[in-house]
């Protein structure tokens, strides 16, 4: 996964205490994933990141979003922190072996290093759980 320098430089005082971090890259696994499992994966990604950030002391999950783009369709998922309120929408397609994943976390009330740590470790753990190989076709 390629980390982006996605911090808000606090040039406007309005941005105080809000930090963001984004990841994007290609992931793949040998066994194709069908659309139902892909939707579950997207939802679990949102829940895992948000719960991790709340454990780290985030005052508010500003917005966590993900975008999954593959040959047969796309999904977008987001959460504002409530596990019951994760949304996953998009266009389903045939099972796929690989896709492009984008994740953005924008959080209020924790340091930027914490947003990085929580986002990266959560993405890694969910990818591993679903048996995806990460860092494949790394975007440079």
């Amino acid at each position, binding site marked *: 996964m390629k980390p982006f320098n996605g911090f808000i430089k606090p040039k406007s005082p309005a941005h105080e205490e809000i930090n963001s971090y984004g990841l994007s890259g290609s992931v793949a696994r040998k066994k194709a994933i069908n659309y139902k499992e892909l939707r579950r994966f997207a939802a679990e990604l949102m829940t895992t990141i948000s719960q991790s950030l709340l454990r780290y002391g985030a005052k508010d999950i500003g917005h966590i979003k993900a975008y999954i783009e593959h040959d047969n369709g796309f999904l977008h998922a*987001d959460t504002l922190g409530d596990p019951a309120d994760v949304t996953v929408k998009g266009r389903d397609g045939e099972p796929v072996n690989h896709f492009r994943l984008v994740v953005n976390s924008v959080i209020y009330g924790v340091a930027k290093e914490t947003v990085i740590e929580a986002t990266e470790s959560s993405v890694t753990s969910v990818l591993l759980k679903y048996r995806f190989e990460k860092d494949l076709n790394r975007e440079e």
Partner: protein
Amino acid sequence: MKLVQIAGYLGSGKTTLILALSKNLAEEGIKVAILVNDVGEVPVDGKVMEEYGLAVKDIGGGCICCQVAGNMRKTLGLLAKNYEPDVTIIEPTGVAVPSAIKEAVGLEASKTKITFGPIIVLFDTTRAEKFLNYDTLKRLVSTQLRDADIIALNKVDAASKEKIKDSKESAHLINPKAKIMELSSHTGEGLGSIVDAVRDLTVGD
């Protein structure tokens, strides 16, 4: 080209509203372009809108209210020249200050035929109380509401009557001049009033 901002704190429903609003405006024969600014370097909202067939320009690299205001002006100039939309909807980041964006656009407006539509700020009625409990967050959300011509109390389908009432009172206290509307981008409640405002309302610069 009329410029309309759909602003509001993170997760207030900007993208969902813009998708519905653009569809309605297009059905009336109004040519719409969208300028999206995501927090961070990896755009998500613009990608989603493109998937729904909308004409979108993404601006990354920072917030258009401060860090990349120059990029926004340049992009607006190119949009006006090359695409000639009737309406351009700006979706700023959830942490942007709408008046700073309008001020930055002002420089381009003098060179291009840009008029200003309303600044519509979404206020999430399900989380309003939380926003106003933290000092820095309260400052940001209050600043956004103060800059609004229209405050749309969003997600009224998911909030209790008491929460909607409290949100309305808080919004009115912060910005007594703004028109306050109730909205559910999810169910479409109140969407017609937003479409009317975007189509018909022009505000001074």
